[in-house]
């Protein structure tokens, strides 16, 4: 998650102090990714080191405020223009878990999939309720609209996960049959296929 660019985007609207940046970041994203004020100051220090922000004195309340520099604005424009990188995907625990479950003796992969599906759909129910409430009140402010977008991102990515789980299950059911045939020929190497089928108990 790019806290760095998030802060630059907020500073682009005018000088701000650390705590204020944190509050605005969270209200924009519905506190989905909470920031601690330490992270904000660490990030500000790095941005200052890189010449993207400068200290801009104190406000009336005595807070040390920061302002974006021209270099910072250029960096921000480039960030908006650049697609988010998908070529080096972040590690996905669920994908790794299912990959490891294939061929693991004694793991019922369909139970793993079903357990995750329940969890994911339930999370979607929660997000959807929040969304229904957000839509009902009619998002008007910038923060409300932004929060709705973030919520919908959570819903859509949970949906993608649920669909992927359905797909995995369907594929494994199909593969289980062909793997079983192989098992019969090989005789005795039962563990691999037993773990991808629900029709036979896993052998140990």
């Amino acid at each position, binding site marked *: 998650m790019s806290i760095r660019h998030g802060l630059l985007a907020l500073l682009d609207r005018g000088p701000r102090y650390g705590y204020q940046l944190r509050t605005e970041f969270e209200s924009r994203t519905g506190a989905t990714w909470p920031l601690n004020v330490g992270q904000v100051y660490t990030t500000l220090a790095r941005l200052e080191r890189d010449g993207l922000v400068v200290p801009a004195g104190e406000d009336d309340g005595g807070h040390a405020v920061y302002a974006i520099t021209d270099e910072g604005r250029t960096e921000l424009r480039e960030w908006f223009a650049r697609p988010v990188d998908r070529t080096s995907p972040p590690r996905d625990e669920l994908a790794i878990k299912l990959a490891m479950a294939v061929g693991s003796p004694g793991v019922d992969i369909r139970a793993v999939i079903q357990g995750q599906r*329940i969890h994911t759909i339930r999370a979607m129910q929660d997000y*959807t309720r929040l969304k*229904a*409430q957000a839509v009902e009140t009619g998002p008007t402010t910038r923060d409300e609209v932004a929060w709705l977008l973030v919520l919908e991102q959570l*819903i859509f990515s949970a949906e993608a996960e649920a*669909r992927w789980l*359905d797909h995995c299950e369907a594929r494994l059911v199909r593969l289980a049959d062909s793997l079983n045939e192989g098992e019969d020929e090989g005789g005795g190497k039962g563990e691999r296929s037993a773990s991808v089928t629900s029709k036979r108990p896993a052998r140990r």
Partner: protein
Amino acid sequence: MQEAQPVLRLQELTRVHGSGATEVHALRGIDLDVFPGELVAVMGPSGSGKSTLLTIAGGLDTPTSGRVLVEGTDIATAGRKQVAALRRRSIGYVFQDYNLIPALTAAENVALPRELDGMSARKARREAVAALEEIGLGELADRFPDEMSGGQQQRVAIARALVGDRRLVLADEPTGALDSETGESVLALLRSRCDAGAAGVLVTHEPRFAAWADRVVFLRDGSVTDTTLRSSAETLLPGGVAAK
């Protein structure tokens, strides 16, 4: 809400198609209660029994064994006349392809079940227009189905399903023919009708639409494998919002 009588109660419901070697167990001992104010989504792979469950709940098919109580009446043992009356007065359907009658306007479509039930045409129309206005479709009252978008037709179908005293709406893939955002508006309407006191059963294979439900029931090979209950998400929210 849980103290109220369920609008729909399925007890040990089974449905077997065919017999002997070709016997197929479409449903194996389903128990399900749907209370007023509740929207229940039924999910599962094709062939899991979702649609069978819905057609039996609506009195369009009869179970092999078990009980189907709609507003307290067992439609598995009731006479044909009684079932027909129950279907007219208590149960509303929403289908993927809307099923509005093309030769009738939106208001006439909504009024039809009431007229069939013996209400005067004038009174039925007045009620229909009020039902359409209540869901923000008052200006469509005199349009024919082919003069409406798919989403508008489906919302009219929901109004028809719940006109009068009917409290049970059975929806079979109601968003199947709609784009994502329109599908969402249809679900939002179904949700709000349930919030207003109706009981809904929604069959869908779309997780994003199932997520509008209070409970999601998973069917597999004719049995319920899991049920989600919604948690209290509002407690996680800054500012918290009162649940219905």
